[in-house]
């Protein structure tokens, strides 16, 4: 693995979380997810997960939150007092709300929940998001054969996460990867995933000296960026979630240079 700015301990924790999510995904009855591949809606940029009918099993979700809490305490025992009471705060009703709000990435709700219950701000959303991902990943697996292109500006065609990562494959084919639901789709080499700009003069690449595999594609039209990693050079290919984590230095560089992971069209009079 490329030397990362992320500590080995945190990388290992994330690897364990990814393994847990894999295990959880296998526990879901695949029939509880019924994708609805409405071509018109997909073409308009509606995420496939929003169109799918998912019958969430609340008891599983609660069990996963417990497991992830236990893993966090195991890896950093000093988190124990901060996480110990989570179980008592979650009932079926709250769990359903967590799933809904995590699905739409409603940070405001989770921040308020944390404040109301005297928790650290990161805790509720982290737990809800981690436990939701197996469902999103299963949706992605089911609809993957139908996903070959993204709609610029609409984020991941499966879960709606803003596009921030692509890898190079085969002869240099650019494939966008979603670190959240693990969906992937093809993209043009010279196209901004945020605004669809294809003007080569307004698409630039930032590279890090000594980093042979990474580049940041930035768009001068919308000030958006995505990280492009040449995974063909790796001996063993890591998961999209780990690539995203270990290339976090590129996010810092891009954001320090005034680019954002969502992209925003400049409004001029």
């Amino acid at each position, binding site marked *: *693995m*490329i*030397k990362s700015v992320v500590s080995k301990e945190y990388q290992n924790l994330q690897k364990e979380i990814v393994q847990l999510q894999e295990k959880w995904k296998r526990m879901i009855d695949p029939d509880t997810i019924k994708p609805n591949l409405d071509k018109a809606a997909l073409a308009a940029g509606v995420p496939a997960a929003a169109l799918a009918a998912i019958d969430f099993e609340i008891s599983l979700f609660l069990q996963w939150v417990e497991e992830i809490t236990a893993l966090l305490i195991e890896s950093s025992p000093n988190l124990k007092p901060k996480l110990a009471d989570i179980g008592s705060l979650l009932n079926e009703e709250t769990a359903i709300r967590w799933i809904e709000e995590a699905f739409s990435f409603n940070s405001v709700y989770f921040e308020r929940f944390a404040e109301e219950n005297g928790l650290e701000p990161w805790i509720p959303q982290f737990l809800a998001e981690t436990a939701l991902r197996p469902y999103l990943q299963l949706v992605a697996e089911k609809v993957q054969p139908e996903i070959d292109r993204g709609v610029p500006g609409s984020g991941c065609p499966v879960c709606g996460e803003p596009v921030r990562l692509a890898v190079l494959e085969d002869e240099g084919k650019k494939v966008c990867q979603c670190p959240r639901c693990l969906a992937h789709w093809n993209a043009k080499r010279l196209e901004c995933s945020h605004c669809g700009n294809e003007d080569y003069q307004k698409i630039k690449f930032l590279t890090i000296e000594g980093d*042979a595999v990474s580049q940041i594609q930035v768009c001068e039209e919308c000030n958006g960026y995505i990280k492009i990693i040449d995974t*063909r*050079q*790796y*001996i*063993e290919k890591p998961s999209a979630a780990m690539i995203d984590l270990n290339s976090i230095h590129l996010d810092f560089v891009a954001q320090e240079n005034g680019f954002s992971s969502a992209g925003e069209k400049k409004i001029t009079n």
Partner: protein
Amino acid sequence: MAKEYVKFVDVTKCDGCKACMVACKNWNDLPVEETAFQGSAQSHPKTTADTWNVLQYIEHENAGGGLDYLFRHSSCFHCTDAACEKVCPENAISYTDFGSVVIDQDKCVGCGYCVQNCPFEVISLKEYKDKNGKEYRKAHKCTMCTDRLEEGLQPACVTTCHTGAMEFGDKEAMIRKAEKRVQEIKGRYPNAQVYNPQGVGGTHTVYVLAEKPSVYGLPENPKVPTSAVAWKDYAQPIGKMMLGATTMALVGAFVTNKLFNKEGKEQDGGGSNE
């Protein structure tokens, strides 16, 4: 313990583009060398201290009387029993956990024993001048991009190969792939074979050759020279034992001397009292 890897080179897929040579020069920051025309598209007669891989171009008349234009990416084989490692008097050459054989430039004294003993002639000496104008030499060869392996990346030459003639991965998997490939190409190349010579314990660059090794100028059955084995496996350990024996003798002499001196002193002391 890192995983042991093998670079698998299938010469029958190579189209002679030389991108591997460029990638190697680029990654390892090796200077350009001016060479004379070789009579073919081949740029260098063989690997040098500044050109760690050379693409061979061979015009070969096959058994049917037809002409085969053969290519081979030639570089260090990274032998499991490397003669260069055995003969190095300074222990400057060592094995890495990945299976690659590397030269420690700080330890190398430029004696050239490795150059003389490499069965594949892939090591070369480079001459340098220090700030006082004094000339010195260092041995150089392909490192299998060990600095890239440490980062989880494939060697630069493998990464750049556009025909997929080179692959890099788990040792056993690569050898299995090579054996399977030979079966596939036997129809076209009856002499096709896996080149992973056991005389040097197997290598970490494994080839599928279209013809017999000698067609590519490779030894049919390379071996670690007996003198190298004698040197590294017998002479050096015995030498160390001898050193041990010498040390023991010295310690013994020291102790005896002390005792002797003590006696002497006592004698002296006794003398002064008189």
